[in-house]
């Protein structure tokens, strides 16, 4: 247990990274919900629409927690100096880059049809996608490790987004209460 504890970041660091994780995931889920909102309002009651929103937000929180759990698993599995020592800064970079790089994945079908189903061209694009992602992560990690100012700037930015992330967490709490009420009543 002590070995595991020693490899884990502090509670504050974990919470900070959770706040970072919450931001893009919730922003995206609210955006998608708003896209579908007119259809929900057409076909279901306002209370059911609130229910749908609550499920979507609760799932976003769950997804954020799963991602943080994965990061903690990395911390436990790898030597401290690789990830744990720069947990917030490196975790933030991973979240931001992954968020950006995941977007095209949802448009695979459109990309493929745009390429007239040319699989070879698609494979080239996919390879560029993977390489740029990995290079982006390696370069960012290197910058964080070699340049203290980079780490400082990232940590400062994280602190600045805390109010918005806190709002999302508050919203999640309300949504969970709504779901409990719906399931119990």
């Amino acid at each position: 247990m002590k070995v595991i504890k020693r490899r884990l970041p502090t509670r504050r660091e974990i919470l900070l990274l959770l706040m970072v994780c919450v931001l893009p995931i919730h922003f995206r889920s609210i955006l998608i919900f708003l896209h579908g909102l007119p259809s929900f309002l057409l076909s279901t009651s306002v209370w059911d629409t609130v229910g749908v929103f609550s499920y979507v937000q609760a799932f976003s929180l769950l997804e954020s927690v799963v991602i943080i759990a994965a990061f903690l698993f990395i911390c436990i599995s790898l030597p401290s100096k690789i990830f744990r020592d720069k947990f917030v800064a490196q975790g933030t970079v991973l979240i931001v880059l992954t968020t950006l790089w995941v977007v095209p994945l949802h448009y695979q079908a459109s990309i493929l049809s745009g390429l007239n189903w040319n699989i070879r061209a698609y494979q080239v694009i996919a390879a560029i996608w993977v390489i740029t992602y990995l290079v982006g992560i390696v370069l960012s990690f290197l910058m964080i490790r070699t340049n203290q100012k980079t780490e400082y700037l990232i940590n400062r930015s994280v602190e600045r987004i805390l109010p918005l992330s806190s709002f999302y967490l508050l919203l999640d709490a309300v949504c969970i209460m709504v779901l409990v009420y719906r399931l119990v009543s």
Partner: protein
Amino acid sequence: MREELINRRDFLKLLGLLSLTMLPVPERKVERKKIPGQDLPNILILVFDSLSATNMSLYGYPRQTTPHIQQAAEKGTVFHRHYAGGNFTVPGTASLLTGTYPWSHRAINLNGIVIDSFEDRNIFRELNSTHHTFAYTHNTLTNLQLHQFREGIDQLYKRSELSLLSNHYTDGLLQDDFIAASLAEELILWNQNAPPSSSLISRLDRSKRHYSEILLNQKYSHQFPRGIPNSTILYFTLEQAIDWIQAQVKEQPKPFFGYIHLLPPHYPYNTRQDFVDLFNDGWSPKDKPESIFSEGRQTSQTPGLRRQYDEFVAYVDAEFGRLFSFLESSHALEDTQLILTSDHGEMFERGIWFHNTPTLYEPVVKIPLIIWNPRQAQRKDVYHPTSCVDILPTLLKTAGKTAPEWCEGEAISTANSQVNTRDRSIFVIEAKENPVNTPLNRATVALIKGDYKLTHYFGYEQKQDFFELFNIAEDPEELVNLYESHPSRARSLKNELLEVLADKTNL
């Protein structure tokens, strides 16, 4: 010094054990109740989604798409002018199950559900006191409605019951808040109109699903070269469904009322190997003018798509034939009323494909209805217009009950009646762009009376309100609009339609 409770290796082992939580939870057994009225016949409704009467040889289609249904119909009652409540699943099924038109139950939108008051006004609730009721559907939209009617359904089966592969998680979870949870699941994991709201888990789920689909398609590629019949994330075969129905007929407590809604021949038209290219005959139907609501579909591709649909209908027909043979040989038809119908049709004409259209032409709203009464030996044909809202009162009559006051249909004659030609008004409504709780401002409503069909289009952007009038008996292809040339007929039907619309749609 305190002893370590767990080391890193043990922690990793524990994580491995977590995978056990993915094991399926055993299903809750439903207790069967004793039901009064043992001498009443069983009732079995079989709905094939998107089955257009105009593409069935039973109703005169030139391709032999339904030879088995035709043969079975020799012992049943065939309704030649039977209409759906709307032109897609939501209003079509809701009208069938509630015996009311869409302007009353208000299940009019995609993902739509009936208004609260209809949760207690439906076929299951009405038959529940005399019959053991059970229901199954492949269709996600119908499943929402069945969950609304759950109070009257003794056994509501999950979609996974008849699937080779199902990724509907809400089927197993959150049954008490199914509608919101089911809509949320779609938004989170497999949104079709936009990217899913989940960034990461939806990707993992999609990859898992994709992998399972590849394995499944490899396994069934010889039997289904165009792919396995499916509905986005549910894969199934009719063979599996028909075997299951046979088992239900034997095992369900009697008398039972079963509602089974199967997706074929809904798109994608993945027919079985023995029907692939069955209708590669070069035949094509009459050319029809482009509709004002044309989707601009390429006319060169339309015959191929229609042929694939017809070949899928032939698969449905063959499997229905297998079921009917079983019911006959097992003597189940001696105490069972069997109903074959659909929720809406399908169209491949006027620049429109499938059924997502504001129009109400015959292919998309004229559906089959065949009723086999217990021990019926001779075929009967009914030629006057009937509607799916008539099914509820008809079944109640079978159960010795009268139709409730709120029902908008009429019990229709089946085995023992003569051909009926009376003029009765029936309606078909398409209003998916209207909110549930407001008057219908943008809709298409058809009034069918005698030989005539008047269709009123109103409220569509950049299109003036207009009417179309066809004599269906003389012009079944709806090629000659009589609205201007038959002013007196047009006026009387128009007045009736507008009067009913004003009465029914102004909430």
